[in-house]
């Protein structure tokens, strides 16, 4: 793979509020974060926790209401709207759950067009795209349309597209969600390779617990805030992640169990052996 490029993402006190007055919704509340070069950070959390909003702000797709985002010494949150497309193009690589490839373009053109957008000539852009796709094992699929590729191949094309302008940071939104187990692992290994061999920072937002295996750090986002992973537990009845301090609890066979509500607790206590396998695994 190509040249290494050191970069650090620093996020301080980042907030995002939608709407105003009584209808205002605080999607992200005072989040701070730092991602080092070559580090893989996984952000997990329940649906509606603010993961997508946070990812959009980190990728300069959405302006924060408050706070500061700094990448490579560049304060993104202070840049004018007109400069953001260029920043996205050159500093970030995006990987999406649905791959988001352009359906009318071949795998090669899907990658090359992003290099062209960054100012590379068509010939050079295609050469660079070809090299990347070959490196990712897609040399025989260069001229295939997305509809002719498997899910794993589409995701590799998307990763090649994310890498083509040599960004400092890869932002991946549920990169394994639409892939089977084999292709999911393959994508995870690839992202790890990119981080470790090229020194790129990789920030992943996902529900997929398997990604924890490759992540250097796992953060839990809930209600727009990062929570201590130690203070979280899983409700053995409904599977929801709950905060121990706020949750309803019960004891059984000398162990503590945490529940999202009294209903789950009562259901558990009515027949704890039914949930015996699904013990309240602490997220440590």
């Amino acid at each position: 793979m190509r040249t290494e490029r050191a970069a650090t993402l620093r996020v301080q006190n980042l907030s995002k509020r939608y709407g105003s007055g009584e209808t205002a919704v605080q999607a992200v509340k005072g989040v701070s974060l730092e991602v080092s070069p070559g580090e893989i950070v996984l952000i997990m959390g329940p649906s509606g926790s603010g993961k997508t909003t946070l990812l959009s702000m980190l990728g300069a797709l959405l302006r924060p209401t408050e706070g500061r985002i700094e990448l490579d010494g560049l304060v993104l949150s202070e840049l004018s709207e007109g400069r953001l497309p260029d920043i996205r193009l050159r500093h970030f690589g995006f990987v999406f759950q649905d791959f988001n490839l352009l359906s009318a373009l071949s795998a090669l053109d899907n990658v090359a067009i992003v290099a062209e957008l960054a100012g590379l000539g068509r010939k050079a852009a295609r050469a660079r795209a070809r090299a990347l796709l070959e490196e990712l094992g897609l040399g025989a699929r260069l001229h295939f349309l997305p509809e002719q590729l498997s899910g794993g191949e589409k995701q590799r094309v998307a990763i090649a597209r994310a890498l083509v302008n040599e960004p400092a940071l890869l932002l991946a939104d549920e990169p394994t969600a639409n892939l089977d187990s084999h292709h999911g692992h393959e994508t995870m290994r690839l992202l790890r390779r990119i981080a470790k061999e090229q020194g790129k920072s990789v920030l992943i937002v996902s529900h997929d617990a398997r990604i924890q295996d490759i992540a250097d750090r796992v953060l839990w986002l809930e209600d727009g805030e990062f929570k201590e992973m130690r203070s979280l537990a899983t409700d053995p009845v409904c599977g929801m992640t709950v905060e121990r301090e706020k949750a309803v609890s019960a004891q059984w066979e000398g162990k503590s169990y945490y529940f999202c509500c009294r209903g789950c607790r009562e259901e558990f206590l009515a027949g704890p052996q039914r949930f015996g396998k699904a013990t309240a695994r602490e997220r440590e």
Partner: protein
Amino acid sequence: MYVALHNLLHDRLRFALNVLGVALAVMLVLFLLGLEQGLRLQVTAYLRQAPGSIAVTQAGVDSFGGGSSLLPPGLEEDLRQVPGVAKVVPVLTQTAIFDLHDKKIFAFLIGYDPALGGGPWRIGEGREPRERGEVVFDRVLARLHGVRVGDTVEVQGQKFPVVGLSEGTASWMTALVFVRKADLESYLLTPGLSSLALVTPAPGVAPEALRARLKGLPGVEVWLKSELIESDLRLYQAFFKPVRLMSLIAFLVGTLVVGLVIYSATVERQREYGVLKALGARNARLYGLVLAQALAVAALGSLSGILLGFAAARLVLALRPQILVALEPGVVGLTLLTGLFMALLAAWLPARLVAGLAPAEVFRR
């Protein structure tokens, strides 16, 4: 541009149908513009070809084809006396009804003196009238009614032998038929009278200056020939308006077709435009993409439409030769501009749609 083309060509059948839709609209625009131009050329054919640059009509008469004009007796001689006049060509005109194979056919008789001019400018077959009662018939009219050189045509019981067939004198209303002025005078019982005098200025004399000198003559209206042509065209505006309205409708239909094509293609790929925007494509680039698609459909549709327009004009010429669809370079150019304008107009709404896309939407599922 290659992204735009790939987008368009992804579904080839739909692309072909879209181009066909635009082509039909453009063909209609071209055909109607050509028809209007043809009407203009036909109604002004005689004056454009007639000698001289000044036309004199009876006072109060402001058209050649639409009004009945009789000049004061002896006017030609008076005109010749005016300094700066090189030549005066008197003509006598009258609408006539020919009996052709039990059909009543309107024609516009032009009585002229073959020695002075003012007759047919192009004879396709036969010759100009020399003897009493001879006529030169319009070739299209003759073909439509099976009239040949050597035949005799009849007007209100009087027989006229056809000695020639003229070209460029057909009309969707009344074709031109030429006869010697003396014969028409005799037929109309108007000896020595003329409807129109065509005046040629002497070398070095400006038509405007000569017209100013002639204005003093009593009982007449003096025109620059170009002004009388304009006046004639104004008279026929009533015929042009529906054609223009149809052209406008065809233009709107064409714009709507291109607009729908590009709008639906944009909506269909809205998410992809959002992806490009999220990846860093600027709005200008995306506008360019939308416009390129609109231009590609409009350009291909326009070129096909022009070819179809020429084919339609040929078909009309074969089926209704009296109708002229004049597809002159100006008309074709105007149609191409219309196609371009269609594309610009059609790209406007989709471009606004693209401009309004929020790049963060790319993460929504």
